[in-house]
């Protein structure tokens, strides 16, 4: 019998999870082969892979937004049925409610679970201050920049104090400078109370700089996990400085070695050994 104590359990455990889609006109598209993913409590795991490899699909399965074709997901040892209520999800696209102000967007996550409105708004203000938007509470999403909207979305997720954070290329649509600032902010907030994080990205630098472990996925169809790299860089990390450490470069080279052929596959190119100079 497994221990009941949740702390000893992995926060997220995907056991032999596979994904297949039915195609219109019959047939099956095998997107993801059976894979195993474990994210320990307090661990920051990045899932890295070429575009369209099914890494976001894995995240949606962990969130309970879609069921796997086979296999099971365990959240702190409990079999996941329906939505994962212990997780906060940060989406790649704009997910704020455009008809609510930033403050209301953050407060709503508390209000729906029964927190009185006043308390929710106070908590929202505190959280908005933490993401550096103290004076932007009354703005509507369309009055905020892309980076600011991401900050609100982050506050919206964090204010509910989820035990698990699921992030789907959250900083993908942002410009390079804003991404760096957002990564710093995320690490700062995460450092304060380490939650389990599953962070999907296609950016190798970002993956190494942020995480404790990088999982590399192969290109689809029948994508699988082809690499599992621990990132032994010291914490707390300075996002800007960590990139100049020799260890960072060693890891970068090792992971890129695994990733490169998969990226080439998605573009219909051959192996690196047959590389033709551009």
């Amino acid at each position: 019998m497994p221990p009941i104590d949740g702390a000893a359990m992995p926060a997220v455990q995907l056991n032999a999870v596979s994904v297949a889609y039915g195609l219109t006109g019959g047939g099956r598209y095998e997107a993801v082969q059976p894979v195993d993913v474990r994210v320990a409590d307090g661990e920051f795991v990045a899932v890295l892979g070429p575009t369209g490899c099914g890494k976001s699909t894995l995240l949606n399965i962990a969130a309970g937004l879609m069921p796997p074709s086979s296999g099971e997901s365990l959240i702190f040892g409990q079999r996941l049925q329906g939505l994962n209520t212990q997780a906060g999800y940060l989406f790649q696209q704009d997910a704020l409610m455009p008809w609510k102000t930033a403050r209301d967007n953050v407060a709503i996550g508390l209000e729906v679970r029964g927190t009185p409105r006043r308390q929710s708004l106070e908590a929202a203000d505190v959280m908005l201050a933490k993401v550096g938007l103290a004076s932007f509470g009354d703005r509507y999403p369309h009055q905020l920049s892309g980076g600011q909207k991401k900050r609100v979305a982050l506050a919206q997720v964090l204010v509910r104090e989820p035990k698990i954070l699921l992030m789907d290329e959250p900083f993908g649509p942002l410009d390079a400078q804003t991404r760096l600032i957002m990564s710093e902010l995320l690490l700062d907030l995460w450092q304060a109370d380490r939650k389990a994080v599953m962070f999907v990205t296609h950016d190798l630098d970002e993956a190494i700089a942020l995480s404790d472990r990088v999982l590399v996925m192969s290109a689809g169809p029948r994508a699988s996990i082809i690499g599992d790299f621990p990132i032994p860089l010291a914490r707390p990390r300075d996002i800007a400085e960590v990139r100049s450490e020799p260890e960072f470069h060693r890891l970068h080279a090792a992971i890129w070695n695994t990733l490169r052929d998969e990226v080439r596959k998605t573009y219909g190119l051959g192996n690196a050994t047959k590389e033709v100079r551009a």
Partner: protein
Amino acid sequence: MSRAKLLFLQVMVAVVVLVFWHVFSTVPLGTGSDGKPYYLLPQFFFSTPLKVIERVFLMFWEGTVYKHLMITLTEAVLAFVIGATAGVLIGFWFARKPLVAAVFDPYVKMMNALPRVVLAPIFALWFGLGIWSKVWLGVTLVFFIVFFNVYQGVREVSPVVLSNARMLGMSERQLLRHVYWPAALSWVFSSLHTSVGFAVVGAVVGEYLGSAAGLGYLIHQAEGVFDVTGVFAGMVILMIFVMVIDFCVTLIEKPLLVWRPTETRTVQ
């Protein structure tokens, strides 16, 4: 363009039309073969702007028009309230229950394709010559506009916003209140000018086809006795009436749609 300049140009359009109308209805262009003066816009058919303005003033001065205005307003407001309420409720229902929507789809299309004027006589039979036959005519117009907008609005809620709301722990009822309802409402408001306009159209057309009071009745009466001045006066009052209602709608929708992106302009 500055507001003053815009307003000036808008007024100029009216002035040009009125002057054109006045000149060609009062100044003869020559003499016809029968020896009578020849007008481009004979007064029997076109009246003159001054006469029309005078008549409008008289109608307000003597107070004969207020009763008719109130009747038309009541009909339009009732038509709008009933039509919009039904449109929102059924729009929501159809959007949330695809099977219902699929079953009723051809009938909705048929009803919507039917020119509503043909319903006026039958409504007069069913509901009498009082206000209710006009109200229901207006309802058939307003309902479809609101219905289609709500249906579309609820179905086209961004799936990402929806997933996010679910992940934030919203139940189906909370989704309805915090996501579907505001999304649908924004569509209703964007069609508010059209639907309010159609509520007035329904009322006036209904009155025109058979009634004892209302602006449509006034115009119909004047036409019956070849009182062209009266017809134009009725039209002018109707136009003012619709403008005032449209202005009120603008006042109502502004605070309700603050969250919508507007064009940003640089200032100097």
